[in-house]
């Protein structure tokens, strides 16, 4: 494996009874990179993560995590990965501080109580797991996953059940881990989250990877449009349905007229000229590239 490569997945295939969960997935993750696995429910994200985590045996393909084959060397794998599972189960009566001491002891490191403070669990140190909210349970699972400072971190739906402040704190933490050299692989439904924190993403559909690249690369491909949203004092554009250069679709949303353009400069210039001629005053003008979510919907709907 190349020196700067943390994870390599080559032709991964996993079948459950007669359902092909993952069909020939191939991708690489660089060291210190945040990599997102995106896809609708049942796309195979969790299965890929579970194969990389050594929780499931692949039916075919080759996996490599920091030079370790997850299906053959589970013990060595435990020291190089940290895992936040989609459903983070701990014994109901285990206290937060006990959980930290318990798992750190099995990893052979001192308990990282500082992480409990960092993740807002300091007041819950003596609480039993079953008495924590879903968000607190997710934060504890994350604290346990990073307590032994693993070089690779797998996060499965990390922000599910978290409030806005906790999500923001988690994104900061992931960024800190990335800066410190940790490779992060996250499976998520949240496109905005992936776009914000992932350097590269892979979009999965029906067990196959249908697109890979940086969020910017992915949003630049496809229909390749830019959204131009315009609001004017007299709402002239909403009413008269004027046509402008490079526009291939037009929507009206509240007081805004939204144009989907292949050449936003030409479109904006023509709109401004049109409004000037008819003495309608511009109130708001927004030019936006399509979001990853829109690109995702475009890919998954075809």
């Amino acid at each position, binding site marked *: 494996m190349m020196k700067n490569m943390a994870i390599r997945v080559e032709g991964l295939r996993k079948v459950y009874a007669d359902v092909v969960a993952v069909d020939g997935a191939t991708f690489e993750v660089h060291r210190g990179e945040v990599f997102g696995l995106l896809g609708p429910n049942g796309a195979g994200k969790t299965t890929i993560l579970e194969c990389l985590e050594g*929780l499931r045996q692949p039916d075919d393909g080759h996996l490599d995590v920091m030079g370790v084959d997850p299906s053959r060397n589970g013990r060595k794998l435990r020291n190089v*990965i940290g895992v936040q*599972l989609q*459903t983070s189960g701990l014994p109901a009566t285990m206290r937060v501080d006990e959980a930290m*001491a*318990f798992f750190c002891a*099995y990893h052979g490191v001192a308990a990282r109580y500082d992480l409990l403070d960092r993740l807002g669990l300091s007041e819950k140190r003596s609480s039993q797991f079953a008495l924590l909210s879903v968000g607190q349970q997710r934060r504890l699972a994350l604290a346990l996953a990073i307590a032994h400072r693993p070089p690779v971190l797998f996060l499965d739906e990390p922000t599910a059940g978290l409030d806005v402040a906790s999500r923001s704190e988690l994104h900061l933490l992931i960024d800190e881990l990335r800066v410190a050299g940790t490779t992060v692989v996250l499976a998520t439904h949240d496109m905005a989250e992936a776009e914000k924190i992932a350097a590269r993403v892979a979009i999965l559909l029906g067990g196959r990877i249908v697109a890979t690249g940086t969020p910017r690369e992915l949003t630049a491909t496809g229909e390749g449009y830019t959204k131009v949203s315009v609001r004017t004092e007299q709402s002239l554009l909403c009413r008269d349905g004027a046509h402008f250069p490079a526009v291939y679709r037009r929507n009206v949303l509240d007081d805004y007229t939204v144009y989907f353009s292949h050449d936003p400069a030409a479109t904006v210039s023509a709109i401004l000229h049109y409004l000037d001629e008819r003495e309608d005053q511009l109130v708001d003008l927004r030019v936006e590239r399509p979001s990853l979510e829109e690109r995702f919907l475009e890919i998954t709907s075809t």
Partner: protein
Amino acid sequence: MIALFNHFAFEFKAGLRDSTLLLMNYLFPLVFYALMGLVMVQVNPPFAEALIPAMVIFATMASTLLGLPGPLVESREAGIYRSYKVNGVPALSIVLIPALTTSFHVLIVSTFIALTGKPLFGGALPVNWIAFVLITLLGVFTCTSLGALIGVVAGDSRSVVLLSQLVFLPSMLLGGLMVPLSLLPSSVHPFSLLLPAAHAMQAYTGFAYGQETVVAPLISALVLGISGLLSFGLAIHLFNWDSRNSSRRGHSLMALLVIVPYLIALVVLI
């Protein structure tokens, strides 16, 4: 070593914090012991002879067959073992440590019963205390291993109750706890001798109380020891991390091998 100590300490505390485990480890056996001591000894005075060993076996079965398997299944269903696996907790610890802590709870209750049986209810004391302690340890080992095996092979929380009761209820009726094996009809003996409780009672009666037995106590002790080892080995071998991931090293019906020592003893004795 620190990890194992932490794990042991947590599991031991869980046996007191969890209301179901507290019930099975302490409340159920001690209340039953008090009832048997107060009522049964009055109704049937010869029962005083068997009070202490019978109640020790009862406490052992309550903790190990009714208490231990449930949390093993629930933990697997709740994904706790998946969390354990990704954090490097070995399968051996997951089976061994709850078994050890359960044994610890049983020994606490057994000690209480052995020390209070005579002063509180006039129960007969063993004539050979060393044999009593050794048979108690052997019985606890056998039942704990069997409980762990039930927890490992039971598919879900409902089937664990069924499997546990499949051993527990016949043991209460036919194991010689309430009525000595020698007083049960001989046609029932083959069924009784398929139960660890019956062999434990025979071993207590022969070795610890120096009385006549239906089965040679050495054979009973051997059956207990071999079946305990077999149960524990099978529990480790058949351990499954994940209820959603059905790949295990052997079919769960392999657990039936545990009955082989009892069948061999039965063939030898009949």
